Each structure stands twice: as structure tokens, then as C-alpha cells.
């Protein structure tokens, strides 16, 4: 799976890894982040 040039949805969770952090990682790999959210189930 090649991230470069791909569109990515970053779905984070408050008790796990935040969407913003996932987005930054995806961008650093050359992906385009089209949606970035962090869910919270508390």
C-alpha cells in the first residue's frame, strides 16, 4: 500500500491516537488528508 498521492481519511479516537496526529503522519508520507476526525465515546 503506497500512501504517496493517496486520499486518506484519518479516524482517530480520544483514548487512542488523535485524528490530527494521524493526519500529520499521513501528510508526511505524501498523502492528501481529506477528512480528519477524533471520536470520543466518554
Amino acid at each position: 500500500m503506497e500512501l504517496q498521492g493517496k486520499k486518506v481519511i484519518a479516524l482517530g479516537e480520544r483514548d487512542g491516537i488523535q485524528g490530527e496526529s494521524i493526519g500529520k503522519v499521513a501528510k508526511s508520507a505524501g498523502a492528501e488528508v481529506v477528512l480528519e476526525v477524533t471520536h470520543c465515546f466518554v
Partner: protein
Amino acid sequence: MLLGTPTADSTELYAITMTEGDPSWAGALAGVALGLLVYHVTEDEVKEQADPAVYDDEIGIAEMVLEVDVLREAAKKVRDRVSV
């Protein structure tokens, strides 16, 4: 799709929902097979492509706390199951 879910169950639930549709048949994605390719952000396929400094800053601490092996396995299990 990249997940940051904290447990194997939540990873599997999200992954199934984004590929085959909502397994609980309760939400808007019930019966809607989007067929998206789902990885957990801690999987090697993702980690190897990211800038190591960014990965360490953003994921490093969480990676030490979370049971990453079971998260990776949960995401892979769903990919293998639906062959996407």
C-alpha cells in the same frame, strides 16, 4: 483510511464498517459496503512511509502505551477477510 483506535475490538468494528458496512445494522452504513482500504496507523506499512521524526512526535508515546500488535492484527484480519 487510517485508524487510531485503542483496542482490537474498536479497530475491527471500524474496519468492518468501512469495508463491508455496519455489522450492527444500526447506523447509516448498514448494508453499505464502501470497500475502503483500512490500516491502523501503527502498522509497519504506514510507519515505514512516514517521516520518522513526525511519526515519533505524533505516535511515539501512544505506540508505547497501546497494544500495537493486537491492533495491527485486527486491521489485517479484516483486510484479509474482505480481500481489499
